């Protein structure tokens, strides 16, 4: 799925991760976000565009200002992404534990 790949590409960049951290608590304008970085303003704008395109950020128009805030639903999707992988290992290790417990009780 392209969308998912984009999300992971988006969060693979340290500046973009920092932006997500920054807006996690409250919505900020592009200017306020850029003020936190040494990077040139257009570079920050590009990062914001990428994060918005893959839906990790949402835009809110408030008068003349555009505020960026985090899309909690999308962030959760990214976090959940690891869950099937974790489940696979959990199943496998549960099985390991069962097999060895049976062996142990047989031995005693």
């Amino acid at each position, binding site marked *: 799925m392209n969308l998912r790949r984009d999300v992971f590409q988006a969060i693979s960049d340290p500046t973009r991760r920092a932006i997500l951290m920054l807006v996690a608590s409250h919505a900020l304008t592009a200017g306020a976000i850029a003020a936190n970085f040494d990077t040139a303003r257009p570079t920050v704008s590009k990062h914001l565009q990428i994060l918005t395109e893959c839906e990790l950020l949402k835009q809110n128009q408030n008068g003349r200002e555009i505020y960026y805030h985090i899309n909690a639903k999308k962030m959760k999707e990214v976090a959940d992404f690891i869950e099937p992988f974790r489940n696979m290992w959990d199943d496998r290790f549960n099985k390991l534990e069962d097999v*060895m417990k049976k062996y142990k009780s047989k031995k005693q």
Partner: protein
Amino acid sequence: MERKTKVNAEEGKQDLVITREFDLPLELLFKAYEEPEFLEQWMGTKVLKLENRMHGGYHFETSDPKGNVVFKANGVIHEFSRNQRIVRTFEMENTPFPVQLEFLEFEKLTDETSKLTMHIIYKSVADREQILRMPFAQGINMAHNRLQEVLLTLK
């Protein structure tokens, strides 16, 4: 049920760490990795070769209930220290996934409990993400076969 197995995969990195605490003494946990008989039971695969030593290798093969081989994996063992550590490579044959490097650390917690820490290093960030995107790539057939076995015993 409590989530016993933890996966720590930091964004943008090409490795990840899987940890698990077992209600098993360290020696029994290690035995599950050392003896083909036990590996076969919990991995749900056939162990064709398992040479537990430096320069040794291993080869697993899984078949579907009809006997068709559906999964093959192999690797070489770089370190085998009983009840402590296994360092090995892991490769799934006939798949686009590159070989990965695995560090398995076995620890005693109490006389009756133990911990396994599995550090897996992938060829690239993209390769790790692909493995995560296909969570069952390493085990779909194994899981499937095991499920079938369980269902058969329920009948």
